[in-house]
């Protein structure tokens, strides 16, 4: 019976919009399990990104508590949270958001050296393998500006995976791509979803991904309205 990798308890988030404090995310309890591929769906403005960035330790919740592998992180400092992100998370954004000043290889390994530590050679090798697997072996030394949108997004996925994160968070990773590129990127993501250790949470509207999801969470007006597991996929820990 696997332990949840990520636990949200009573999480809510308020934002000031001009004058009023508005609750954008209602009190939410949510457990995320290793190996689970979760899709987060809902209308625009419903709070998907808000929930995702709270799970990613990027946005602070207004209330509630978060635990990673059972360890509460709510009171941690900003730098401690940054280190947790570095070692446990991979992020894929809507746009690739590669650093244009760095080469493809540097973009992939930049995070592991960003706190001042040496980048191990093994990490470079892993980056090469990932790029190879994504059909980008020839792009290692190119600059992001020389890549197509789909190539950039695959580099961004390699960047998210190179640290072998326990949690991979993707916010509409294909919505900015043309249909051809998004098909290629989706293919990569679908393969990743089969990984049995990594929790993967993706905000997406793309119906092509849905069949691969283990779990579908629907969110409306800041509240989870349904949380279903695909047939044959019992809730981890649930006894039948």
């Amino acid at each position, binding site marked *: 019976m696997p332990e949840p990798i990520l636990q949200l308890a009573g999480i809510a988030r308020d934002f000031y919009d001009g004058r009023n404090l508005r609750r954008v995310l209602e009190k939410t309890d949510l457990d995320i399990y290793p190996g689970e591929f979760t899709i987060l769906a809902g209308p625009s403005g419903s709070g998907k990104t808000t929930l995702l960035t709270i799970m*990613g330790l*990027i946005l602070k919740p207004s209330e509630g508590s978060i635990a990673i592998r059972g360890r509460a992180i709510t009171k941690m400092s900003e*730098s401690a949270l*940054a280190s947790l992100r570095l070692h446990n998370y991979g992020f894929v954004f*809507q746009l690739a958001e590669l*650093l244009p000043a760095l080469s493809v290889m540097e973009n992939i390994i*930049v995070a592991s050296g*960003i*706190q001042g530590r040496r980048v191990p050679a093994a990490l470079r090798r892993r980056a090469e393998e990932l790029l190879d697997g994504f059909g980008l072996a020839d792009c290692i030394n190119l600059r992001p500006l020389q890549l197509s949108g789909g190539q950039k997004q695959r580099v961004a996925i390699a960047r998210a995976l190179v640290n072998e994160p326990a949690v991979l968070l993707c916010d509409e990773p294909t919505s900015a791509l043309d249909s051809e590129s998004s098909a290629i990127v989706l293919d990569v993501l679908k393969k990743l979803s089969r990984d049995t250790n990594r929790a993967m949470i993706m905000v997406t509207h793309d119906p092509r991904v849905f069949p691969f999801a283990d779990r579908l969470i629907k969110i409306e007006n800041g509240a989870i309205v349904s949380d279903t597991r695909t047939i044959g996929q019992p809730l981890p820990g649930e006894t039948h």
Partner: protein
Amino acid sequence: MRSIVALKILLYDKATTAGSLIGVIAIVFLVGQQLAVLFGLFTYMSVLVDHSGADIWICSKNTLNINATDTLPERYADRISGLPFIAWAEPVLFGNATFITRDGKAESLQVVGLQPSSRALWPWRFHEGSVEDMLEDEGLTLERLDLGVYGDPKIGDVFEVNDVRMRISAITQSIKGFSGRMAFTNVVKARKILKTTPGRCKAVVVKLKPGVPLEEAIAGIQAVLPDTEVMSSAQLSARTRIYYVKNTGMGGSFGFSTMIGALVGIIIITLTMYTGVLQRQKDFAVLRALGARKSDIFVIVLCQSLIIALVGIFIGFLLLGSFLNGTVDTNLPVYMPRRIAPMLALGTLLLCMLGSLLAVRKAISVEPASVFR
């Protein structure tokens, strides 16, 4: 990796980097050139003292300025010659006179009188002629860099200096004065030109025996000659410079232009580095999301401002160096004391750091959540 990221971003954003570099170069060059001119003028002010070859100067009481001192009895030199720590003491003669050019224009001269037995105040560099030519009966030196203002006279030309007939017999090189243009002649003619009462001199200069402490010697001489001002050459030199800085308003003027140079530089640095960070806001947000701490972003921007400072200081000093080289032996008063250069470099580095403050503040305040918007 942080320094590599810093460097790569600088290389990528070439325009803003070039802008920041120009700010640093502006500080080094503008401030450095102002300082060089100021120190150049300083060397003019105290040229006679600095090149005297003497350790101690004895002047009239309350002398604030080598170029404005009253006369003393020559026998003061004999009175102290017997002191055990003195190698030699001798009266010197110099003062202001008026040189009349061929077209009747008056130019102020600082005339120094010497005789073959003199041990101090000799001209130290000749362009044409020699000490012997200078000591001739009516002989007078002029400075090559000043020849233009005298109407380009030649060796052998005859002129009047304070109604005394003098002949140009030698030309010095780069011996520039401040209150008057330097001219050397023999002591007999100097006395006639300066109308100094017989038996009186302008100052007594002293050379100490090796190893004698300066302070003790000054006190010893002062005790023998209580109604004089006894100073080391360095003291008189500094006193003269301070006098001019205070009394000509040049202190304020140089201070102002130096400040403008520094200010222009720091504003350029601030604006361009801030622009640089604004351009890279998204990159910093991405790095923060991926695990960079605020301190890591701080290090990146700090590295950038260090790189810009060091490269800018290097280029700035190259430019300043060629400016200084190009002005050697010209009429521009330019001199950069050795200890000033590292101070200028350090000051520029600090100003560059100061200029990057706003950029640093902006960079570390970037929110990682902004990548998702």
